[in-house]
């Protein structure tokens, strides 16, 4: 039962209610960083990494600090502070210890602070009353869902180079329309229930 529940959360946030295509979280980076598959992949990894850690830390803060003292209204400010600190911390940590990762993810980390997906998922975790494991699974699913959507987008945009796009459609408009097609496709997954 427990495992099925976790799987349901995971599938829901990754596919049926994909963070980008159906919940509209993290769209700026979705359109901004999807011009090549490599940068999209790096961005996806960075987001996943930060979401999972932020989910864990914010769960502790929520459960042991905000809820016992009925300070839920401070949720937004505390969570975003945690995320901003965390991102800077991770940045410094990998710059010092894992230069390889720094070269891969370095330029995407600052983008993650203002990515709605991260704050959004921590808020969802708290609003839905998820326990620790559920929060982690939700975060991981969201990150992977983000990666899936952004990599698919980058793949399609790569192909777009060969297509004749009308002048007025070039750039952002066609990207949004691709987003629409992908959202339609993902919409088909709705009703994909795990009981």
């Amino acid at each position, binding site marked *: 039962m427990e495992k099925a529940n976790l799987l349901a959360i995971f599938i829901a946030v990754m596919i049926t209610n994909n963070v980008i295509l159906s919940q509209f979280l993290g769209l700026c980076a979705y359109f901004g960083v999807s011009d090549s598959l490599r940068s999209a992949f790096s961005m996806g990894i960075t987001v996943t990494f930060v979401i999972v850690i932020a989910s864990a830390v914010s769960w502790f803060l929520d459960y042991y600090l905000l809820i016992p003292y009925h300070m839920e209204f401070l949720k937004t400010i505390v969570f975003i502070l945690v995320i901003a600190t965390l991102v800077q911390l991770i940045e410094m940590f990998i710059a010092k210890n894992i230069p390889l990762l720094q070269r891969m993810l370095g330029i995407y980390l600052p983008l993650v602070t203002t990515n709605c997906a991260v704050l959004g998922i921590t808020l969802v975790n708290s609003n839905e009353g998820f326990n620790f494991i559920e929060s982690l699974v939700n975060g991981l699913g969201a990150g992977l869902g983000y990666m899936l959507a952004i990599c698919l987008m980058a793949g399609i945009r790569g192909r777009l180079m060969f297509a004749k796009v009308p002048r*007025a459609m070039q750039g952002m408009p066609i990207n949004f329309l691709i987003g629409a097609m992908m959202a339609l496709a993902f919409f088909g997954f709705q009703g994909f229930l795990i009981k």
Partner: protein
Amino acid sequence: MHVAPFNIMTLFNEFFKGIVKENPTFRLVLGICPTLAVTTSLDNGLGMGVATTFVLVFSNMFISIVRNIVPKKVRIPIFIVIISTFVTTVELIMAAYVPDIHEALGIFIPLIVVNCIIMGRAEAFASKAQVLPAVADGLGMGIGFTMAVSIISGVREIIGSGTILGYEIMFSGYSPAVIMILPPGAFITMGLILCFFKYMGNLLGRKV
């Protein structure tokens, strides 16, 4: 830090550029998450626009006030604290006085914190300008955003549910195109509106 002198004209310029020339949604394509997510009906769109404008004006104002005493390294955390204070204020006020819209907007009210428009204006403008121009800029950008969100949500509501602000306006027998208030509809509307603006821009550009 060099601060350009200003007069009434520059104030007007700061104000109007956000509405047309540098419209945050249609020109700069910033802050698209709430633009797409909450525009299922016009009242939601308006609510979001007003909330964002409020936060934008006040955060711009305060960031401009403290701009000279903030050390460079903790700039982002401090801006975030200032912005989220106003966001939480808006959230509480909305929960108290317009609970229906508060509920409809849901998670996207706290997410105003990470709206790229606000952080972007704080970084690009408010942290370098005097208080009055910063407020004018915030107000202009906010109104520009509100207008953009209203246009999108109006279009989606009319086509997607055949109503406007909840009143039936389409002819009887109109069967609403539900897709427009579903997620794909948001992308379609935004894409086509952007395309329209680009087309008009091209046309005007050619004339000049």
